[in-house]
């Protein structure tokens, strides 16, 4: 162990996608689009770790959803999503419930996204597969679209 694959072929945290989402006319939380760092898509069930931290505040699992294919998954639901395929060209949206949302301007966004490659078993191990690092961190700018 110890060797972690990294296959970043495109931006993971997508620039220009950090924004607040609204419910009942009020900011109910924020969202950001992410892409998988690999050369092919993966079933959601291979995701081993998912966490999002903005300005040092980590989202609780209860408040975090990974949205793809028109569906929304809590972190603990991912490992059983054997049939839900996340395409390599498809941005997934991470939504974090946070009444009031984020302030306009710059935010430090940190994504932990670790998965395993289900066709690359680790030598000599039972039911253990090569870990892949799809984590990212960057300063992102949130624009409020309140006048649109």
């Amino acid at each position, binding site marked *: 162990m110890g060797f972690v694959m990294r296959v970043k072929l495109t931006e993971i945290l997508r620039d220009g996608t950090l924004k607040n989402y609204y419910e009942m006319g009020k900011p109910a939380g924020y969202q950001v689009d992410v892409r998988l760092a690999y050369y092919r898509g993966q079933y959601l069930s291979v995701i081993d770790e998912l966490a999002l931290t903005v300005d040092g505040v980590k989202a609780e699992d209860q408040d975090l959803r990974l949205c793809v294919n028109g569906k929304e998954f809590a972190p603990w639901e991912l490992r059983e999503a054997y049939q839900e395929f996340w*395409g390599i060209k498809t941005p997934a949206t991470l939504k974090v419930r946070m009444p009031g949302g984020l302030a306009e301007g710059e935010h430090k966004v940190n994504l932990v996204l670790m998965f395993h490659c289900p066709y690359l078993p680790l030598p000599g191990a039972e039911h253990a597969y090569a870990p892949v690092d799809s984590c990212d961190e960057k300063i992102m700018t949130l624009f409020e679209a309140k006048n649109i």
Partner: protein
Amino acid sequence: MSKIKLGVTTHSYVEDWVDGKATLEDMFRHCAELGIDGIEIVQSSMFPDYPYVSDAYAGELRRLENAYGVKLVALDGNMDRGKRYDRDLNENEMLKILIQDLQNANKLEAPILKSQYLMGPEVMHKAEKYAKEYGVILTVEIHNPETPTSPIMTEYYNMMVETGSTHLGFTPDFGMLANRPNKAEFDRAVAGGARREILDYAISLRYDDVSREEGRKLLAAKDANGFEMGMFESMYGYMQFSKTPDYEGLVKILPYCPIMHGKFIDILEDGSESTIPYPEVLKVLNDAGYEGYITSEFEGSVKPGRSSFAYVREHIEMERKILAAL
């Protein structure tokens, strides 16, 4: 005149594809421009409705085939045996994946489906009747660190010989014929913090066929750091190389090889491939009477300012030059 046919797999363009710089149509157009008439598609990267094929996608593919005179020569499938958290997939679940892939190949009129060795010879044997029904040759990929005569591939071979099926075979990947390390990877490791003398030592261990465990100990005794250990592990995995590539094994399984992956990492200034002795490989295949496709599979990194398309062109040019001289 060699009867070997040249094709390209979509995997070669994957960096540009994933980053939105290339479309499937660009790939077909590039093949046509190069005079290449066969393309291989990696389903899990390219299919918008993976693991399924919509009628719309099938229609679009047909349009591209007709417009550019490039036909689908193979589909690539993945055997995601480890997609469950609690256990490996069982035989029925793996067979289901193969049946779906074979249906896709049939729908798109791909004559060959490549899958991966984790299915195991028993599941492949069970899938044979479906392959026959769908008129598709089901192959298992032989990828580094496997070789045509490694234990698991020998099991596959024996199963194929016993069943005598015309619908089972292998897709050898030329990576297993590499006879030298990949220079670009080593340069990157040095830039990342690996010491060249330790890497040279690791290379010598690989050349001398020192076992992986023994090599780990020897490197640890030299205080190898993480970058150096990582390169060592790669040399026993996907970057494996040997002074004596298994040509004999390749020729032995040749009757079961309808297609091969022309792996390449980089084309050097002199026009040769960086790790695989293509002149030797193509001569061995030509002398043994191979007449199938070799699909160019670029697996290096695109250097800044270049595109994957340029690498594919150089690889095809190199192969044509070698084949013309045979």
